């Protein structure tokens, strides 16, 4: 792997970065590891993958030196953000700090990676600080392939169109647009071809927007324009939800690939759609950091990994987690799985630092809950085991599945899932 420098990034990726450096202190957190350190690990990206890795390296490694680099001051959860868009939760309820990680001895640095020197095993941050590592974990999430839709980048930049596919200001922006939308208006959402982050997410979003309209703007419409030939997750359950709760309000169209956006006009191959609120979930690929580091090895989009260690196929000593990875068969891009990737990586990194053999039979599991009304949810689950012959994770035959029906009980489980995974990931 060659070195990676920020100059290889496009200009837009660098805009507005590195502003927090005045207040930065690398001394950060004290909690000294007990005994001599067995190694230094730098984790870049504080989402579900990176934060979980940092937490579990400390929990299981004890005396591993862990530094987490994250550009944002707080963790904002994508899971449950559709409830904010539907008006059923507030931003504060999906926003959490990194104080828990600091309390368990993770050095948390708010900053942005400027360059990685893979040969010298050093990360340089914007502002000049350098972090040396024995192992590097990158969990960069996804970035958008704006070039695939003419005009989309400008429309998002101007605020005319939202993506709301990275939780944060975009989530709130979409919520505000829905609140300001006239009675009887049209909300249109474009779904990209799979694979994308969170397969059931767009359909949950359609339900959440419709739940808001049903209560507050009953004449409004939800138009779902899916580039895929069918609903990508929990298909029968979402079809039932659209009919049972939002009949006449939600209209779902397949094979609608977005070509161009101009203001709130969306051009598809066979039709133009003018919306009052236009939400475009753009096509996605591994986060820019993974691309810049040369970690993207599959389809020019995703980072291939060794599934026993999550180590990059392109860069020894660099582990990649979460949505940025080229997924194993039937493994969705989810926060839950990013957390599970992190645990496999943390266990392997500790063993590698100690010179031990890594676990040859790791397991992962996934659960994605989707809300269809303010308090009813349904799930999809899967259990994945490492297959030594095919060197990837495969689902365990006979395991996993979906809900029989959405229910209030599963709505409570969904909230319980969120509370527990947030605590697990962030050491709350």
């Amino acid at each position, binding site marked *: 792997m060659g070195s990676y420098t920020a100059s290889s990034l496009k200009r837009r990726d660098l805009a507005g970065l590195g502003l927090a450096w005045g207040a930065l202190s690398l001394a950060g957190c004290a909690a000294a590891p007990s005994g001599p350190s067995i190694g230094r690990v730098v984790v870049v990206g504080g989402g579900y993958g990176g934060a979980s890795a940092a937490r579990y390296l400390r929990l299981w490694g004890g005396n591993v030196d862990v530094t987490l680099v994250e550009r944002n001051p707080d963790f904002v959860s994508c899971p449950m953000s559709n409830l904010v868009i539907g008006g059923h939760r507030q931003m504060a309820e999906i926003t959490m700090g990194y104080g828990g990680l600091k309390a368990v001895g993770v050095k948390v640095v708010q900053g942005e990676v400027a360059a990685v020197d893979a040969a010298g095993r050093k990360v340089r941050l914007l502002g000049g600080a350098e972090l040396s590592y024995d192992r590097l974990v990158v969990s960069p999430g996804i970035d958008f392939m704006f070039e695939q839709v003419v005009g989309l980048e400008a429309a998002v930049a101007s605020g005319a169109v939202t993506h709301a596919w990275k939780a944060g200001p975009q989530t709130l922006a979409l919520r505000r647009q829905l609140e300001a939308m006239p009675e009887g208006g049209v909300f249109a959402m474009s779904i990209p071809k799979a694979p994308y982050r969170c397969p059931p997410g767009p359909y949950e979003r359609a339900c959440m927007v419709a739940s808001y309209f049903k209560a507050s703007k009953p004449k409004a419409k939800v138009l779902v324009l899916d580039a895929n030939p069918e609903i990508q997750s929990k298909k029968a359950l979402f079809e039932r939800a659209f009919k049972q709760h939002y009949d006449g309000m939600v209209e779902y169209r397949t094979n609608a690939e977005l070509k161009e956006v101009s203001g709130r006009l969306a051009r598809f191959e066979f039709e133009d759609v003018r919306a009052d609120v236009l939400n475009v979930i753009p096509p996605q690929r591994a986060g820019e950091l993974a691309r810049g580091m040369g970690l993207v090895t599959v389809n020019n989009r995703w980072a291939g990994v060794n599934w026993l260690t999550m180590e990059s196929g392109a860069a020894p000593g660099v582990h990649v987690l979460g949505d940025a990875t080229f997924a194993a068969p039937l493994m969705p891009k989810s926060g839950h799985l990013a957390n599970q990737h992190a645990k496999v990586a943390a266990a392997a990194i500790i063993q590698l630092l100690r010179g031990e053999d890594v676990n040859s039979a790791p397991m992962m599991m996934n659960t994605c809950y989707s809300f269809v009304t303010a308090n009813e949810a349904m799930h999809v689950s899967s259990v994945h085991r490492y297959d030594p012959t095919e060197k990837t994770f495969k689902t365990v035959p006979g395991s996993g599945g979906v809900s029989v029906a959405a229910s209030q009980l599963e709505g409570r489980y969904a909230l319980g899932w969120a509370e527990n995974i947030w605590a*697990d990931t962030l050491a709350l």
Partner: protein
Amino acid sequence: MTLPRQPHQRGLLTAAATLLLLLAQPSAHAQDAALARNLAATCANCHGTQGHARGDMKVLAGLSAERIVAAVSDYRNGTLPSTIMQQIAKGYTDEQVRMIAGYFAAQPPKQ
């Protein structure tokens, strides 16, 4: 929890050499413990870190291993009704469930 495996013995090795070998490698017991820990961590997203669940979710820390094994078995065969546990229980072998149960049983009930 499985019993720790006996270290591999060879006739020509003296007791001292065996000890050196053991010191150079993580013990079979440590490996099993790490494996049980890793397996149990796949449950943490709903049942809390080390089984210390929050909110409505079931706390597993400190439950007896027998009780956890029996519950998973009942979920698997449908004796115990569930929304999701039946699907997840079928993803783990009996041996894995025993290791997970042993891990949670060994956790103190409260953090």
